[in-house]
């Protein structure tokens, strides 16, 4: 609400602001931490050339984007070089591909806290007092001037990525080809954060605001006199792969067979974090940690970030594949992989992953020769199993000890070290078996083409951290294989050329997808602690511990499980349906919860259109999601009329009363449809060819991103996190969605 709106609301409810806060201002705090306009630019230069036996391409791209928030920006440089060389009568081909990219971005530390504050802060307070000092009111708990937060802190992150690949292809006798790839990638992050002395002295002990999931928010203890954090980590990966291909035609028969080997080594988070505090001057920022004096502070320790980040893992595979076709009419493919990963228990590192597929191209059959409808028609069926060895720590199968506190031993304070992770030598590959039946078709001489696929995908042995009785496992959990999950669905891809004349051409392609997700089981024969796990705790003010989702057999991921809103009682207080079906104004967390809808969409849509008229071209891309629901916890947190004296509320809470101390509780009231249709991108271009002597072509274009969204969703943007274990919760989602316009030119020489 604006200042006049909130003032009127309080007056109508017989309340008033504290004179500490009400300085007669009308501040739009969300605007106050944003730029009015943000400009971006991007430049790209490429050169290429070659001879009969070699070619090369080199390019350089530079981009500079200003973020919408004050102090946020991104600069990026990408350089690419690719060289191919043939030798020994073209029997040997060598390739070298090197890419280097470097980015440098600035952001606001504790961005989600800052954004939350910009939504909560009372509009009647000014950004600054007449004295020039920032306005603050620390008598109001967890209440920080968001402009002061933004202007008294910096967060800079630099990434650099070097990827190099060397490839060799050797043509051998007997229809054999040998391929070898050797690649190396190094990804370096270097981050610096500085909270200046104003920040550390005024905002100490604030809580961070992470995204909902399995872990909660935590209190941030700052060292006074400015606090700097540096973090530098390198991830490297090395890949060696070689394979031998035999490709042979015998009349109508064609066989292609491949055998190969690959070896990959990953080192992640090789580096360190350090946080220190107490600087003589704030402008040193995070650039010279040696000037800090952390030992001059009591109750502050230099810290080194999270424990156990460094990891090294290896993945080795042997693979073979045979494809056979008869006259491109009957096609058969079978493959098998033997994959080994160091992350599993010693006796379970290797897994076998077969797949088989058949296809029948009906359009090649004699009985199809006399029709004109189908240009191509192919029926397909396949079944395959894949393995997953990612998504958890590389040392998950091992017993690992860590710090568990300190204790008294013989007159001294002694470190207590014990198992923080239990060994699970039975940890093995998580497997996903996919069956797919599909048809590919081209109609009317290529004017209409498409594919329909029906699939059934079942993941078994899901790797998950099971809660275990601490009497057996004192750390309380074991990461093990157990649950299973199913995804069934249908996908349709269609591309049509409705109009194609010499001067005007319209091509349109549509993708539709429907998927049904269901958790079949979350148990392991030994561990029952995976089922009925409550998760996604947005931790809004006054309702810590109120989770909004549940992981449960028979339900999909993203199943909302929360209070059921049942209107207001005669005193105007929100009431909820209790576990016994009665109405209550004092519902119990976790007990009076009900199954609500879920975050899984019924339909995903993508629709691309391309129009070309003479020298003009127009691309339009629409995207949509339908049938999903979103738990709008952001809205709930701002829907607290009872505390409107201290924290701003949403405009549409205007019809509520301050007597309703329950209105903000997470409940079915805040579950909304998440359906939307977005004009994601539209681009209009004009191309001139052979301009003058040196310029081959010249294209001018204008592009708009995020031009409109049609949705009934009341949050900032219906497009929220849909991945992970807790999809579909809109929490602290205040990052302003931007609409961008881009003007550009492409010149080819």
């Amino acid at each position, binding site marked *: 609400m604006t200042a006049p709106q909130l003032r009127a609301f309080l007056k109508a409810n017989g309340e008033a602001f504290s004179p500490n806060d009400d300085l007669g201002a009308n501040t739009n705090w969300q605007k106050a931490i944003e730029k009015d306009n943000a400009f971006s630019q991007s430049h790209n230069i490429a050169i290429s050339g070659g001879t009969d036996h070699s070619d090369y391409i080199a390019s350089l791209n530079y981009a500079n984007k200003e973020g919408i928030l004050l102090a946020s920006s991104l600069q990026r440089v990408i350089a690419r070089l690719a060289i191919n060389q043939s030798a020994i009568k073209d029997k040997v081909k060598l390739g070298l591909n090197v890419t280097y990219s470097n980015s440098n971005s600035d952001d606001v530390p504790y961005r989600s806290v800052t954004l939350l504050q910009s939504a909560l802060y009372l509009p009647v307070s000014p950004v600054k007092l007449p004295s020039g000092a920032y306005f603050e009111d620390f008598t109001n708990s967890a209440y920080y001037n968001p402009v002061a937060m933004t202007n008294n802190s910096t967060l800079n992150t630099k990434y650099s990525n070097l990827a190099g690949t060397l490839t060799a292809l050797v043509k051998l006798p007997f229809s*054999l080809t040998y391929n070898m790839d050797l690649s190396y990638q190094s990804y370096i992050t270097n981050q610096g954060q500085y909270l200046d002395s104003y920040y550390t002295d005024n905002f100490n002990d604030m809580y961070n605001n992470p995204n909902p999931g399995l872990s909660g928010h935590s209190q941030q203890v700052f060292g006074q006199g400015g606090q700097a954090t540096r973090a530098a980590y390198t991830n490297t990966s090395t890949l060696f792969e070689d394979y031998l291909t035999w490709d042979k035609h015998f009349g109508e028969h064609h066989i292609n067979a491949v055998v190969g080997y690959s070896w990959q080594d990953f080192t992640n988070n090789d580096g360190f974090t350090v946080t220190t505090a107490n600087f003589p001057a704030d402008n040193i920022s995070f650039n010279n940690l040696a000037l800090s004096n952390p030992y001059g502070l009591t109750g502050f320790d230099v810290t080194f970030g999270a424990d156990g980040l460094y*990891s090294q893992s290896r993945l080795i595979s042997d693979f073979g594949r045979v494809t056979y076709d008869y006259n491109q009419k009957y096609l058969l493919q079978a493959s098998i992989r033997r994959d*080994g990963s160091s992350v599993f228990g010693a006796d379970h590192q290797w897994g076998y992953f077969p797949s088989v597929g058949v296809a029948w191209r009906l359009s090649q059959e004699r009985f199809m020769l006399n029709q004109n409808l189908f240009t191509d028609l192919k029926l397909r069926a396949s079944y395959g199993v894949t393995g997953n060895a990612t998504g958890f720590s590389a040392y998950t199968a091992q017993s690992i000890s860590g710090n568990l506190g300190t*204790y*008294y031993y*013989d007159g001294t304070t002694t470190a*207590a*070290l014990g198992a923080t992770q239990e060994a699970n030598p039975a940890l093995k590959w998580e497997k996903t078996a996919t069956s797919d039946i599909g048809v590919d078709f081209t109609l009317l001489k290529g004017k209409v083409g498409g594919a329909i696929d029906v699939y059934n995908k079942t993941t078994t042995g899901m790797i998950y951290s099971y809660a275990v009785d601490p009497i057996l496992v004192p750390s309380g959990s074991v990461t093990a294989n157990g649950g299973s999950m199913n995804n069934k669905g249908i996908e349709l891809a269609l591309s049509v050329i409705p109009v194609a004349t010499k001067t005007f051409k319209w091509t349109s392609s549509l993708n539709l997808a429907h998927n049904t997700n269901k958790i079949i089981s979350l148990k392991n024969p030994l561990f029952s602690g995976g089922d009925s796990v409550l998760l996604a705790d947005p931790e809004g003010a006054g309702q810590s511990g109120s989770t909004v989702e549940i992981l449960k057999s028979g339900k999909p991921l993203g199943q909302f499980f929360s209070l059921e809103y049942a209107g207001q009682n005669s005193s105007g207080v929100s009431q909820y349906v209790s576990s016994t079906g009665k109405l209550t104004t004092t519902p119990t967390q976790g007990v009076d919860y009900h199954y609500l809808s879920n975050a899984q969409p019924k339909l995903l849509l993508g629709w691309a259109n391309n129009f070309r008229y003479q020298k003009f071209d127009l691309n339009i891309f629409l995207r949509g999601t339908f049938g999903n629901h979103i738990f709008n916890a952001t809205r709930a947190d701002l829907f607290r009329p009872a505390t409107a004296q201290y924290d701003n509320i949403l405009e549409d809470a205007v019809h509520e009363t301050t007597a309703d101390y329950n209105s903000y509780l997470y409940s079915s009231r805040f579950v909304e449809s998440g359906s939307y249709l977005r004009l994601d991108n539209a681009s209009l271009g004009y191309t001139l060819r052979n301009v003058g002597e040196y310029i081959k072509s010249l294209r001018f274009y204008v592009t708009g991103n995020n031009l409109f969204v049609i949705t009934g969703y009341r949050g900032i943007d219906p497009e929220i996190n849909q991945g992970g274990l807790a999809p579909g919760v809109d929490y602290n989602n205040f990052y302003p969605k931007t609409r961008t316009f881009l003007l550009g030119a492409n010149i080819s020489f």
Partner: protein
Amino acid sequence: MKKTFNYIIMAGLLTSMFCSCHKLSVPITSELTPNVFPQDSAQFIQAEGPVYVALRGSYGVEYFFMQTLSTDEEILPARGGNWYNSGENQQLHYHSWNSGNAYMESMWSWTSTIIGLATQEMALLNEDEPSTTAGKSTSIAELRTVRAFAYLMMMDLFGNVPIDTVSGSFVSQPASPRATVAAFIESEVKAALPYLSSTVSIATYGRATKYTAYALLAKLYLNDNYYTAGTARWNDCIAACDSVINSGLFSLQPMSTYFAQFAYNNGPKNGTLDPESIFAIPENPTFSSGPWGFRGTNLHQRYDLPRSEKAKYHINFTPSAPESTIPSYYAYFYDSNDVRNNQWLTGLQYLEDGVTPVTVTTTNLGYNQFYTGSDPSGVYTYQVNLTPDIILRQDVASFDCGNDEIAWNMGYRCAKFYPDSTSPSTAMNNDIPVFRYSDILLEKAEAILRGGTATLGQSAVSLANELRAARTTSTAWGSVTLDSIYNERCREFTQESWHRNDMIRFGLYEGAWGFKTDANPQHEIYPIPFTALQLNTKLVQNPGY
């Protein structure tokens, strides 16, 4: 020639592909895996630590609440919604708890974790520590005794509990009957006894000695009649007490220094051990409690001190102050010559000089939230006067006294653990006693009164008088009854987490006090929490829940 050359290349390629490296083992160079920890004697001491950190983890706060707020000793009502905490403290007072009460969950997992850690550490030491290491068998016996103590607490709280002693097993056990658990605890302590140290010194402080084991057995035998529904073992209890008494290593703290054993510099911190201390939980504000967080300390000054007395005690934070006793418990302190009366803060409050009043300046409305006069914001200064009764003025249903000065001054406060002005935080340096010599004397007296045979020339009345001589200047008792032993225990063990156990053993737990009228004997055992039933599907909920 060319063909031969081709064959050689082919053979070479195939060999290189299929004999390539298939070695998946990656050395772990960044974690404490069993290969590197624990390997030497310093590491074995560090590896024993987690069980002691865990024992400290909830002993001082939540275990204290379970054993105390469920009795007439202390009450923790809400103050204007603060401290309501989903009614968990209210339920302890009314005996209206259910398996969803957060304390059930934390107590079950706390005692289970101590047991699990002890089992794990015993196996680790047993397998990995060289048998030549001095003290190896003592370290293992100490862990075994701590595990038995955790079993005693778990069985005392929850009745039938599972006996798990196999490290590395993922197979849950069904709950064993309470009597079986009691027998298991006895056999475990007896098995550990020969290897435990008989030295009572700074070197063994905070860990189990032979006398910890005897004190544990005495407590078990004294309650055996209740735990096992039948067999009385009074003479076993007396024998265990005698083993402590005969050691000559313990004595009663004289009256003049009674409170020293609960002070911030108690335990080895003042250079000598407290003469009554048999087993204590060492506390220190600088200890890190790992996963147990800030409650893994002694927090009595946070819960018990009036908010207005921060300056009086020179403490470095404003106490929260929701906890007090109720008049029916304070009534046990009727002997004006008893030093233990001084643990209570009652009535008008004065600074340390005993003359200067403790005053608070507030508004008329701040003093009394139900003020209806014409000047609610008028300044009001008054001398703090702690009143004995707890009155749920704001709302009985939500256990709420209100959030004004009147409400904050309700209830007499216990400052037995004298506030720690040396601590920068709410955490206190005051070690928490588990077994004290005075408990041994009163246990022996009680066992004699209940039918055991007196030994060492001592009688129930001589034992009681031995203690009273160190607590009061009133004349010695001529005779003693079970009732007077109970009353003496109330005076002696306030805030030492034994009162629920005492009330049950004396058959008083079904009585009415404060706002509580519940008389259901099934409430002598707490419900098994929801998550425990989920994690161990072999458990069966206790009767009545």
